[in-house]
């Protein structure tokens, strides 16, 4: 390959691209294994999913080249444009799209379908990078709480959070795609890197812990009284003055709010979502027959792999459609069964390596835009990795989101490719310009 500035490969990080390619190839091999049967061995058979995935992969290669060809400035200049465009597409799909199993998130073209929600990820990432690259969300220490100062301090944070929340609301509420919506939470990691105050995170974390606790402890009064005792105790402990009293009361009120809110949310969940949470927490009488079935089968498939696995195409659990959605969200089961502990940790390491590599590359950027965008890519990939594998091994509730580059599906593969290659392009330009 010629090393000149005109080559589209000038300055691109080869390690990242190789890791990407390796993941895509391994992913396809596993989809082939998941769908495999003796009667259809032609890998180009487009009536089968592995055949279709080949078409998707070819498309992804074209997209990757296309992105590397376009000037890097294009993405910074049109960041808001992309955001608005894909937001509109996500709203239009509600009317123009076709309803599949209760959610309206697909544009259909014959046998192939596209989910605009997948593409919202890179658009949101671009907009956050653009927005944060010339503003700060770092909070100055204030000694007197005044509304004016508060607004001044948190204005940028709130706008950034708004950019994240709008797609969540549209995708969850209108399209009814919980999995696709929840991914946007990953961008909080980007905000943290860019200076989001730790107080925010601690409060968020505490709220999350309280959320889980209030689901496990079902008695409301017990919980509220316990919280009150803790609050009273900490007040006595930290010193009895008026300021502390106010703080303790506010914190108590917030916690009580979370507890009551959790109860409200839980009671208003769809029955199948309720059950997923019950399965995870072992709460109530979870019936292994139905709701626990998916997770239990996934665990059996993975567990049966042992240390070395049963060998490629030798899996029985995943082959007989015993694990649902084994080629999309539960693709990791095929890995676990056929490649064992050895293979499944290998895949996780490969994914983790890619993510850490992206963080490393992000940190060497001179431009804020590129760094922030890079962190967004790493955060989104990690979130998918953690939730997808977490659910197959029973550490997370069953939320339908794909394993990056691995799961069957054109929209997700293309969306991850775009997300990653824009970063590779930005990174290749790191020495040319300072944005």
């Amino acid at each position, binding site marked *: 390959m010629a090393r000149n500035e005109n080559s589209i490969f000038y300055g691109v990080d080869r390690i990242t691209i190789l890791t990407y390619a390796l993941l895509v190839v391994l992913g396809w091999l596993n989809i082939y294994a998941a769908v495999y*049967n003796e009667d259809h061995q032609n890998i180009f058979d487009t009536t089968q999913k592995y055949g279709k995935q080949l078409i998707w992969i070819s498309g992804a290669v074209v997209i990757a080249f296309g992105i590397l060809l376009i000037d890097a400035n294009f993405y910074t200049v049109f960041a808001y444009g992309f955001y608005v465009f894909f937001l509109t597409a996500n709203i239009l799909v509600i009317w123009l799209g076709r*309803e*599949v199993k209760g959610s309206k998130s697909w544009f259909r073209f014959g046998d192939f379908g596209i989910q605009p929600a997948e593409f919202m990820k890179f658009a949101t990432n671009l907009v956050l990078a653009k927005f944060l690259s010339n503003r700060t969300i770092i909070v100055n220490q204030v000694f007197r709480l005044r509304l004016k100062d508060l607004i001044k301090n948190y204005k940028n944070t709130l706008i950034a959070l708004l950019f994240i929340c709008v797609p969540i609301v549209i995708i969850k509420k209108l399209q009814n795609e919980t999995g696709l919506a929840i991914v946007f939470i990953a961008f909080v990691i980007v905000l943290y890197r860019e200076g989001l105050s730790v107080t925010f995170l601690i409060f968020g974390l505490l709220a999350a812990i309280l959320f889980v606790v209030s689901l496990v402890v079902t008695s409301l009064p017990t919980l509220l009284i316990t919280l009150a005792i803790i609050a009273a105790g900490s007040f006595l402990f930290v010193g009895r003055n008026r300021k502390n009293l106010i703080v303790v009361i506010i914190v108590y009120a917030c916690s009580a709010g979370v507890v009551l809110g959790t109860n409200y949310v839980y009671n208003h969940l769809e029955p199948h979502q309720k059950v997923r949470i019950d399965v995870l927490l072992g709460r109530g009488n979870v019936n292994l027959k139905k709701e626990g079935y998916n997770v239990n089968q996934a665990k059996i498939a993975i567990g049966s792999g042992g240390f070395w696995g049963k060998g490629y195409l030798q899996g029985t659990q995943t082959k007989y459609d015993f694990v649902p959605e084994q080629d999309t969200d539960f693709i990791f089961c095929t890995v676990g069964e056929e490649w064992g502990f050895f293979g499944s940790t290998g895949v*996780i390491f490969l994914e983790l390596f890619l993510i850490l590599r992206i963080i490393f590359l992000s940190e060497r950027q001179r431009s804020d835009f590129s760094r922030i965008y890079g962190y967004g890519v790493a955060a989104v990939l990690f979130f998918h990795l953690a939730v997808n594998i977490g659910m197959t091994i029973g550490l997370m509730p069953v939320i339908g989101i794909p394993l990056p580059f691995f799961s069957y599906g054109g929209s997700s593969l293309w969306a991850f490719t775009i997300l990653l290659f824009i970063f590779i392009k930005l990174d290749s330009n790191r020495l040319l310009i300072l944005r």
Partner: protein
Amino acid sequence: MSNNSQLSGRKFIIGGFFCLIVIIYMCRLFYIQVIDEQYKLASNNNAFRRSTEYPVRGYIFDRNGKLLVQNSPSYDLMVIPRETKGCDTIGLCEVLEITKEEYLKRMKKACQAPNSPRKESVFEKQMSAKTYAILQEKIYRFKGFFPQKRTVRQYPKPIAAHLLGYVNEVTKEKAEKDPYYREGDYIGITGIERSYEEQLRGKKGTQISITDVHNKIIGRYMNGALDTAAIPGKPLYCTIDMDLQEYGEKLMHGKKGAVVAIEPSTGEILAMISSPVYDPNLLVGGKERSKNYTVLERDTLLPLFNRALIAMYPPGSIFKLLDALIAQNDGVVDKSTVFPCAMGYPPMGGKPKCHKHGGAKDLIGSVAASCNSYYSYVFCRIVDQRKYPKFIDGYNHWRETVMTFGPGTHLGTDLPYDKPGNVPSAPYYDKVFGKNGWRSNTIVSLGIGQAELLLVPLQMANVVATISNRGFYYTPHCIKGVGNQKYLDKKFKEKHFVAVQKQEAYDNVIEGMARAMEPGGTAVASRLKDIVVCGKTGTAQNPHGQSHAVFLAFAPRDNPKIAIACIIENAGFGGVWSAPVVTLMIEKYLKGKTARPEIEKRILDADLINGKNLLSTGFH
């Protein structure tokens, strides 16, 4: 940026957090895959086969507990393509009476998505009993094929096809939208089968079997702990009286039209006939069904069309009852009001025309004799009354009052696809005649149930039920209980009061209806000796040919048990054909049989569709 250097330490926290999660996951994986034996025991090298157990569709009973719809066993021939090595293909083609090409075509379909060579899919749907018997003898030769038990509908008596509706394969779109259905499943398409689909269908069950390397079933996975049993559909208790329905269908044989009978005190539909009928048993089964359906669909008499709910007819003279009620309620006409008749409506030069009935009539006489002139005056009195200085308000008042009886609205029954009929709106006439270009006399034929007025037979029956109740109705419905608890939707227990509540108005109209069955009335020929019937004839002119014969009635006069409306297309005068059908059905329902066998014979023998017996008796 200076901030960046302060914050770059956070990269370690983020990276560290990512690594921590991965380490936790690896520990978990190590536990599941290497340490814990539980999962290895659960999975050995056996394969699994998941099969669906189909529930039995709910039975439907009539109001007296007689079986209207039941199920009979039926078998689908299933195939697992990759197990068919060594199958006697030619023998199978012979049994199923298909060609080799057809066999290959179906086999290809069974291999393609969403089917799969290693999954079972339907090869032949709902085999006839004969085919199944032959197949069963030779099944050992047909490797990879096996019969699966399903059920199909069966009708002990070939009646009430339109009301009951039929079941057919779910459409591809519906199967994609609704997670309950998979392609090849059955769903109610029309009638009760459609509106009570969720109650009737029950719930599918799943069985997971363990098979050996030769794909023989060797047991049930986890001893059936993960299996779910199919839950049968709930029985429905219908409001129909089977005997009355059957009798009505016989009477309507050879006639195009509809009859709807309602129990006024509950709104329960006692009979709903749309003629011509078809045998519901024709629309079950596999091959036969599609053949029969094509024949019925192409029939020019439209036997698949439920006239009782969706055929909109001009009501004709029966509409005069509503005018009489509204006018009295508004106080613009009373019992002693007399209007002239000159074989027609004098102010408009004798249009609409009337017939010879012996001079000017008072209110009760006008109902009995059905005077067109009288109701042209009445209509104008209502629309032009002083309370509404603006003519358009008067018209809207008339229209809205009429609509409280049901015409122009969806009654909200528990049957799908009912039509609202039509009571023309003021904007409609503005369009036709121009704004302010119309007056009460322009549209006076509305008063006698002509012009653009359209009602479906169910609405006609609801009007007469409301009159018999003297001012209210229950939404007509055909299911009185779902499941063994006989649950009934609240909305069918709710009284709907119409806008006419003056009891005296009902007394006079009912007296007029009773006199219509007396000498001098329009339906005296259908008078019954021992039951006081209150009826009203109608002869609805229509642009497509001879007038439709309409008759509605309720009986007995005190404490009415049945309200009924009948329309026979292109049969001429209501008194000649529809009144006998209605009164015969009243006798059947109240007495069990008719005391007028000669009239019964005349109606049963009449074939109005092919033009026989269409001699007008000259009776007006």
